[in-house]
């Protein structure tokens, strides 16, 4: 498979996952705000801040918009062309990547991405933001799930599929971390600390990961911090938990290299194996208070490093050819380029 094709498959999938997760976050946030006691605009912005901060987008938003009400945040997260992680930008980027490799993917895959893009493009942003059109959010999520289903059942489960899997699982694990991280910001910005508010926040986070039902099946009792963290980080069975995603990522990487999972054949595989151990062998204490924050930050950083190593090994950076001496190799890695960034 061409390196460029592997790169595009990875990013096509990663961008779609990113769009879906951003919609999930916005959706949950808006639904939570509807039930909030304070409806005034600046109070609701204090609810948005943690989310924007966890996505690393608070600064860009405040630069771009003078008014910080919910409509504008929603507009920024979903439709903004200036926000490179907005749902629109992500879908446009997914489509560009798909367009580059449309000879490689099934026509059904291309058509669903193209339809989603046209749907977003023709959606009246004002209408969605002002009238809170939840149907719109559901549509985007369904398109993403449709794409995954179509990929599953129309795309050969070979090398290309594993790169799609890598992109999706890295993004998903990262977003679950960020959703958990958002809770940290919520605590510090809210003065009125009360149990019911805390409960509502954790419930919202679980909903954001589509995890509320699955959580309830395991933890019959109240929703509490330690259990939610345990569930979203350590569950071996829930498809959006961090450990689950990273194990899927590991399987994909080893399918690509054909190296047995007990060993590693490149830096990406080594980092993934180590990260899995860190998560698996963590103690209750590691998931409490500051420990949890440290752990989540570490996972996010490691995921970023793994993405870089995958890119180096399989995409543009190296010419793997024994005939070339190392000097030439370095030169080539400087001039070659990747068209995407995280």
């Amino acid at each position, binding site marked *: 498979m*061409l*390196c460029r094709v592997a790169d595009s498959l990875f990013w096509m999938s990663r961008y779609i996952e990113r769009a879906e997760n951003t919609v999930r976050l916005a959706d949950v946030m808006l639904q939570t705000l509807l039930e909030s006691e304070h409806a005034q605009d600046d109070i609701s912005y204090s609810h948005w801040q943690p989310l924007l901060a966890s996505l690393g987008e608070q600064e860009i938003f405040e630069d771009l918009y003078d008014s910080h009400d919910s409509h504008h945040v929603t507009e920024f997260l979903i439709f903004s062309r200036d926000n490179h992680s907005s749902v629109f930008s992500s879908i446009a980027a997914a489509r560009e990547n798909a*367009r580059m490799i449309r000879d490689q993917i099934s026509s059904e895959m291309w*058509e669903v991405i193209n*339809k989603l893009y046209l749907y977003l493009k023709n959606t009246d942003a004002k209408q969605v933001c002002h009238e809170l059109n939840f149907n719109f959010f559901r549509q985007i999520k369904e398109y993403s799930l449709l794409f995954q289903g179509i990929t599953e059942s129309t795309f050969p489960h070979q090398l290309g599929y594993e790169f799609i899997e890598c992109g999706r699982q890295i993004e998903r694990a990262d977003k679950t971390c960020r959703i958990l991280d958002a809770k940290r910001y919520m605590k510090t910005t809210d003065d009125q600390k009360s149990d019911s508010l805390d409960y509502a926040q954790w419930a919202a986070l679980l909903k954001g990961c589509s995890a509320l039902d699955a959580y309830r099946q395991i933890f019959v009792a109240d929703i509490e911090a330690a259990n939610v963290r345990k569930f979203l980080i350590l569950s071996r069975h829930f498809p959006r938990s961090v450990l689950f995603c990273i194990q899927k990522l590991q399987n994909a990487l080893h399918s690509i290299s054909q190296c047995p999972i007990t060993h590693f054949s490149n830096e990406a595989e080594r980092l993934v194996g180590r990260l899995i151990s860190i998560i698996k062998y963590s103690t209750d204490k590691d998931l409490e208070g500051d420990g949890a924050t440290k752990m989540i930050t570490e996972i996010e950083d490691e995921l970023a490093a793994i993405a870089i190593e995958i890119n180096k090994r399989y995409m543009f950076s190296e*010419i*793997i050819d024994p005939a070339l001496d190392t000097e030439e190799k370095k030169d*080539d890695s400087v001039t070659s380029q990747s068209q995407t960034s995280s």
Partner: protein
Amino acid sequence: MSVHNSETNMQIKYDLGEFYDEMFASPGVPRPHYRNLLERFAELTAEEFNLKREAVDLSFLQQGITFTVYGDQKSTERIFPFDLIPRIIPKNEWHHLKIGLEQRIQALNLFLHDIYHEQKIIKDGIVPREILESAKHFRKEIIGMDVPNNIYIHICGTDIIRDDKGAYLVLEDNGRSPSGVSYMIENRQAMKKAFPKLFQQMGVRPITDYSDHLLSALKHIAPKNTLNPVVAVLTPGVYNSAYFEHCFLARQMGVEIVEGRDLVVQQDNCVYMRTTEGLKKVDVLYRRIDDDFIDPEAFRKDSLLGVPGLMRAYRAGNLGLANAIGTGVADDKVMYCFVPDMIKYYLDQEPILPNVETWLPYREKDLSYTLENMENLVVKAANEAGGYGMIIGPAASKEELAEFREKVKAKPRDFIAQTPISLSRHPTYCGDKGFGGRHIDLRPYIICGEKIKITPGGLTRVALREGSLVVNSSQGGGSKDTWVLNSDQ
């Protein structure tokens, strides 16, 4: 005539004017090969027709069968407008076109081989040396170099028009990378979906084997002793206006589509693709990048699209290129004037398909004629395409004519003058106006491998604006499915 009243059935009627109409011999009297089609269309209600039309447009958009229009600050993607009324060519007319095109491509390939070797046609005084050496795309770099099987133009898209008597004329030969073939194939798919019954009844010749012929022509130029040649399509990338087509062809042939940055030329003068498993050798490239940009080592140094060292591999015989380097010299409109002479010179035959009557300001006699009669002529720059760099005398103002006269006087070599041809017209759906006659041309696709293969039909382009003669997609053109019949009616 309105198509919006859903009760009425479809009727195609309009003023035929002074033009050759493809469908009607005279008002109300269809030509024999259109009779069947007209009867079937008359069974459709206007509403049914509109539903079919909308379904086809939507499916083009959703499949992303689009091209890119440049010009605004950001380029935009559009679908190539498609007209549901097919253009029909009866068997005998197609035969005439086919043998004419075969003759022409043979002469062109002999010419290209000659000018890059002995240059007999120059020495015998048929084509002036000055014309050849001043041709923009003449590549001195490949003089003396042999290309596989002496084929230079493997894929050709000749533009054919019909005059007011219905005679087929060659407007230009596109011997570099003619585009549009994907629309030819997709148009057929769309028509088959929209009118399945019609196809059963009409006896339309299939076009599906285009990509098979293309692939075998490409394998035909693989380096010697290559058992299973690796073929790839080389594209300038996703922002090229024809990117959809590049992907389409790669997918149809089941080969990789590569960009310049996917390829490297190693010390052994072979071309390799960068793959996730390491480097993999490439034997043949169907390149859709112009000569100028294909290798920054050999041609334009600033090209980011090309592959450094590609020409080294080509020269060493380790790479087949389609089309060959240097075919653009035959696309020079001045060289076009000499094609009938080439046919006589190399094949000792009379040209079957004539050129449009053309004057060469390069010749003094033609220069004065051109300057004196410019208001009655079409004058074109020799090396522009897409309808740019030309003046249509009868439609131009005095100032425009004066300005263009100066241009021609300054560089007579760079221009040709032609009699304006009022292209034939074809009934076309024109929105609220119902049906109207619109000017069309035809681009058949010729593949030159072990044998010459011409797909029956080709791409019919239609100038959708009333009265317009410009069929280019970048300037308001659309297209039609083109049917070559198994019979004469």
